[in-house]
């Protein structure tokens, strides 16, 4: 039988290595320059959640957060990757503190003249309800460190996989210097189930997947310039986009400081109607401060 010609898209698909399929550790490996990965507080350090076993829940030896030092594009870097498969990437005391501490140490490097940059690979449903208030406290500490570090070096938030980026970590993405997303990724504060519960099914039908991705999926966030880069699920392409963003240096103004733009954007919306994702894109297209 003659091998049929496959389209370029299919050929590309068969060649590429999926980033979404990778676990947190392999993601960090994929983002760092080859041979530079060095994990901090890895599994064998066994710093686990003290709170989960008290509730009969099996902990993970890295608490779902991989912190690795290394280099990106030849420059010192720290990659922080969350594991969406462990407790939904939720932020508990240990994993949250790992993030905050890694950011703080990167800041100290920068203050001492070593330009350590940071990447956050996020898969998270938000705060870990089994550690509730400690989750809130470590989130606040993560935010504090992000605001301090991003003055020195860009922080890239990378949202790739099926867990998405919700709750407390969506705010972290909001504080990042740059945001990279795949079309499969979602970035939203409140999960659709929670909104459906709080505001009713007419507000959001959490089972309507195309609708959910239409408002918070990577395509829409990129289309409304809430994400800087939209990439296909390809580990090499994603790593390259991270390198490219670092080459851009610090953004002229981080997104969370663009008050005028977003106040204008809010002003342009009719609050009395439920907008579709496309309507929002159209309305916002005309609101520009460039």
């Amino acid at each position, binding site marked *: 039988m003659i091998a049929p010609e496959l389209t370029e898209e299919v050929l590309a698909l068969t060649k590429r290595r999926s980033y979404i399929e990778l676990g947190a550790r392999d993601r960090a490996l994929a983002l760092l320059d080859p041979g530079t990965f060095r994990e901090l507080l890895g599994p064998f350090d066994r710093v686990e959640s003290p709170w989960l076993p008290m509730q009969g829940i099996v*902990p993970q*030896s890295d608490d779902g957060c991989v912190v690795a030092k290394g280099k990106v594009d030849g420059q010192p870097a720290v990659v922080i990757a969350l594991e969406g*498969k462990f407790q939904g990437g939720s932020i508990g005391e240990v994993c949250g503190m790992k993030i905050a501490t890694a950011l703080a140490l990167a800041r100290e490097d920068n203050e001492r003249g070593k330009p350590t940059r940071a990447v956050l690979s996020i898969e998270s449903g938000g705060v870990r309800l089994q550690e509730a208030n400690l989750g809130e406290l470590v989130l606040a500490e993560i935010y504090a460190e992000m605001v301090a570090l991003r003055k020195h070096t860009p922080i890239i938030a990378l949202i790739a996989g099926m867990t998405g980026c919700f709750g407390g970590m969506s705010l972290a993405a909001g504080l990042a210097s740059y945001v990279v997303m795949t079309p499969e990724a979602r970035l939203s504060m409140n999960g659709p189930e929670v909104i459906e519960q709080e505001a009713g099914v007419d507000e959001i039908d959490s089972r309507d997947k195309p609708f959910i991705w239409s408002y918070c999926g990577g395509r829409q966030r990129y289309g409304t310039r809430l994400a800087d880069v939209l990439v296909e699920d390809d580990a090499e392409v994603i790593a390259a986009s991270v390198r490219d963003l670092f080459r851009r240096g610090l953004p002229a103004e981080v997104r969370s400081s663009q008050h005028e733009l977003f106040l204008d954007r809010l002003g342009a919306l009719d609050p009395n109607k439920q907008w579709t994702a496309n309507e929002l894109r159209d309305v916002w297209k005309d609101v520009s401060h460039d």
Partner: protein
Amino acid sequence: MEKLSFEYPASAKASRKAHVGVVGSGDLEILLEPSDDAKAHVTVLTSVTGFQSTWKAVLDRFFERYQGAARIDIHDFGATPGTVTMRLQQVVEGNK
């Protein structure tokens, strides 16, 4: 949640640390470290209770073939015996 312990005789010290898996639905995490005594020490922390004999059967079979002296920690989140065996094979790969 249940904690189980097992011990098996071993003939050679495992050569290095290894880690596989994730504590996600139907999966497990295994940490393997070389042990100085001639034994394999296995501890299992599992989310599903009442499967001691199944764990023993899986591990008995595995340690018929694997002879490394090691400390093996398992964090299980409802993996099937097939998955447990697969992860055990992965963690000892190149670590005889």
